[in-house]
């Protein structure tokens, strides 16, 4: 219903575009007056006057619909003891009434056994509330549609009445357009602030339970210890102290990212060198898109591959040479992640290598250097800054990667630098702490935000450094 009314608003505003334009044309043709703007602009003017208030009101009604419902249903007349209810009980009853409202008015023949039983189990006042709610929903839906027919038409008539030769619609329309596009580009900034504040507020809540220093310097990670002992004392402070130690997560993340970079940096860089310097145009045109397929494969696929094929394979190989390898070794997750990052490194490095001016290569050839000597001693040093930038972006990508490690790495924290042992990462722990019940008053949930904030800051530093390096490098050869 609500989407129908939005559609109506758009259709009506489109219709009034022509009315506004027509009226402006009439002014010139029949009354021989000169307009101050093109007739189109009077049409746009009408549309703006209709759309802006109508859409604002539509959003308002959409957001507050559930509040209206609750006010309507949860009246003390039906539920006398409603003042004593907790928020969760109110929610529960509201859910029940909503479910009831779908079936309460159905004819007997359409009811299934299940419907009959929930109707039988409902109390008298719940049934009345459900009937009220069903009635309310019906009226609300129709009122909504009526409102969004009357409102645009009314606004449209006001707007067309306002059209006269004295009205210069063009600057008004252009100013609205400029506000809209300006607003759109500030959304990008808003998203950054949104990320930052949503992380920081919940992280502050987390640090109310757990000491800042305990979090960053403790070496044991065991979030299951964070449970309430009893209602009066709340959380066991001693247990909390040892429950959230960040160090093993950090070492695990670094370990897996290192394995990934050991795979991705040489392979990616050499691939880029081959494609940029050696390959014929034909080979390049075929190989480059195929390697870029690797970049387009969703990470959940790599995770599946790592957990299903790679980890057992590595375990078997390790055991055949007598090495004990865990089934969730850091090596398997790291290798899969490395393969994922190859095209990332190769395409960024490829761009950078191609940007090195040919005059430098020609100079080296003129001195008698071979191709590989030119690459190693001239091209790579010249491209070094850009290549470093691409490595930094790749590292940032590796530490922020989630699905591969969630599926292939371990859930148990383990302070180790041995890639054959299981290790866990920051992102894995964010996911595990949020799967299941999300309670914003429990450190077990809140820790996800503290970890997210740390991750965000780590990647922010790497990204900004990389962006600045690459930007500076570009300017050098532009």
């Amino acid at each position, binding site marked *: 219903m609500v989407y129908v009314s939005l559609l109506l608003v758009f259709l009506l505003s489109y219709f009034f575009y022509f009315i506004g334009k027509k009226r402006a044309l009439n002014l010139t043709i029949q009354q021989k007056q000169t307009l101050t703007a093109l007739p189109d602009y009077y049409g746009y003017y009408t549309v703006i006057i209709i759309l802006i208030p109508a859409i604002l009101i539509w959003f308002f009604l959409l957001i507050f619909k559930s509040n209206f419902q609750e006010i309507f249903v949860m009246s003390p007349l039906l539920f006398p003891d409603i003042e004593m209810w907790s928020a969760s009980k109110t929610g529960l009853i509201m859910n029940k009434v909503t479910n009831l409202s779908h079936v309460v008015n*159905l004819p007997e023949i*359409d*009811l*299934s*056994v299940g419907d009959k039983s929930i109707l039988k189990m409902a109390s008298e006042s719940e049934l009345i509330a459900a009937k009220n709610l069903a009635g309310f929903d019906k009226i609300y839906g129709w009122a909504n549609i009526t409102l969004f027919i009357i409102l645009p038409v009314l606004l449209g008539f006001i707007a067309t009445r306002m059209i006269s030769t004295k009205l210069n619609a063009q600057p008004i329309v*252009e100013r609205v*357009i*400029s506000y*809209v*596009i*300006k607003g*759109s*580009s500030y959304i*990008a*900034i808003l*998203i*950054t602030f*949104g*990320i930052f*504040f*949503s*992380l920081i*507020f919940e992280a502050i809540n987390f640090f109310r339970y757990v000491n800042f220093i305990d979090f960053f310097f403790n070496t044991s990670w065991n979030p299951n210890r964070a449970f309430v002992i009893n209602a009066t004392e709340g959380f066991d402070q001693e247990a909390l102290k040892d429950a959230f130690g960040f160090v093993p997560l950090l070492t695990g993340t670094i370990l897996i990212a290192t394995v990934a970079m050991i795979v991705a940096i040489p392979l*990616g860089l*050499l691939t880029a060198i081959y*494609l940029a310097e050696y*390959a014929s145009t034909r080979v390049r045109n075929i190989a480059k898109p*195929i*390697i870029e*397929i*690797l970049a*387009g*494969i*969703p*990470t*959940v*696929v790599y*995770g*599946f*591959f790592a957990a*299903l094929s790679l980890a057992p394979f590595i375990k078997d190989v390790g055991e055949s040479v007598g090495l004990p390898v865990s089934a969730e070794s850091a090596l398997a997750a790291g290798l899969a992640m490395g*393969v994922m990052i190859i095209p990332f490194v190769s395409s960024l490095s490829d761009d950078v290598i191609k940007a090195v001016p040919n005059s430098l290569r020609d100079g080296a050839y003129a001195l008698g250097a*071979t191709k*590989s*000597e030119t690459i190693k001693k001239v091209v790579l040093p010249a491209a070094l800054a850009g290549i470093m930038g691409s490595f930094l972006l790749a590292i940032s*990508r590796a530490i922020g990667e*989630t699905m591969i490690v*969630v599926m292939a790495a371990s859930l148990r924290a383990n302070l180790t630098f041995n890639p054959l042992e299981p290790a866990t990462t920051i*992102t894995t722990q*964010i*996911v595990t702490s*949020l799967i299941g019940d*999300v309670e*914003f008053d429990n450190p077990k949930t809140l820790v*996800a*935000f503290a970890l997210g904030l740390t991750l*965000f800051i780590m*990647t*922010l530093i790497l990204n*900004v450094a990389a962006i600045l390096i690459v930007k500076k490098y570009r300017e050098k050869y532009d």
Partner: protein
Amino acid sequence: MTDLSKRLAAEKRFKYIAMFAMCLSLFFVVILMLKIFTTGSGAFIRTTIEASVYFDPNTIEVTNESSIKAIKKTSYVNLADQIVKDNHPNLNDEKFILVREMYTRKFDFQLRDYIANDPNIIGKTILMDITASSDLDQIVKGNYPRDVPEAQRKINDYQLSVLDSLDADGKISSTFNLWFFTNGDSRDPETAGILGALMGSFYALLICFSFAFPVGLLASIYLEEFVRPGKLTDFIEVNINNLAAVPSIVYGLLGLGMLIGVFGMPYQVPLVGGLVLGFMTLPTIIIASRASLRSVPPSIREAALAVGATKTQTVFHHVIPLSLPGSLTGTIIGMAQALGETAPLLMVGMVAFVMDIPGGALDPATGLPSQIYLWSESAERGFLEKTSAGIMLLLGFLITMNTIAVIIRRKLEVKW
């Protein structure tokens, strides 16, 4: 001259190392694809058992005069049991349970659809291909070995003998598994389908597109055409480039902390998932769209300005129509990335078990990649197949979207 030959040998060595590195990267693509296609192809086939089905009016709780709604809501478990008993006469209780396990647990849904389709069938007898249970299916497909001790098999000796006798009667057959494309998720691999997840992803992408495309396009217009270079523009620029590299899980936390926590939006719905994906896609669209605006030559703008167009008219009437194919290409590529993103969906709760097919952006749903993740966590062999098949479907969509992007770029983009 040994020095020169050494240098030439080094040259050759370097070239081969580089070539080897490239081939190794290509090799990974091939291995990955092969593995997925070999494990997943089985999901498109299901095993069925032919049985005669008598729609006994005494067992069915509805009549042919009941409304379709009532028929759909009634349980047919007793009818299903009755039919198994009719087809395998003289079973004691213990053996009946074993035989019943060979048919899918959701057999009653198949019956329900039959009756809802044609209520007059009540009282008649027909021959029907009933889907076999996942364990039987895996035996028939040869994914479970038959020649291991009974204790290590999911299908015991008695069930195997029943299977063989059914097979000898020609009652076992394999058909195309349409359910995979028409069902929602299920606890049983044989009835689990991808449609629910597909619709969830569809609604999420719809929201993502309707947020990110207009905002991204307008933002790029502002940044490229209207604003003068300065501190603020530099800040926005670094900010957008950084947003493009922020880990996707952080966007998920934004969705959870802000959209769900502060604005009180519902958990596990495509609306929130789509908005989060939209936030993620926005920088990609802005960057692509700015590049395509930049490629429109200044002469176009100057010509429009010279004949008296305002700045807004120049941009909206002349520059944008020329740059739109480039923006669209960037948008489709961004949407393809968004389709494959799993982590943000995990954060906003789109990983729960959802049987119903979502009918809108406000119904609980999973997405395609999060469904793949869910299935990959299940232990049964039947779900392994589904996971790979889901991946094949996802990759199919990604390839289609990228191909469309390439076609738009080739056909519509103007080269200057």
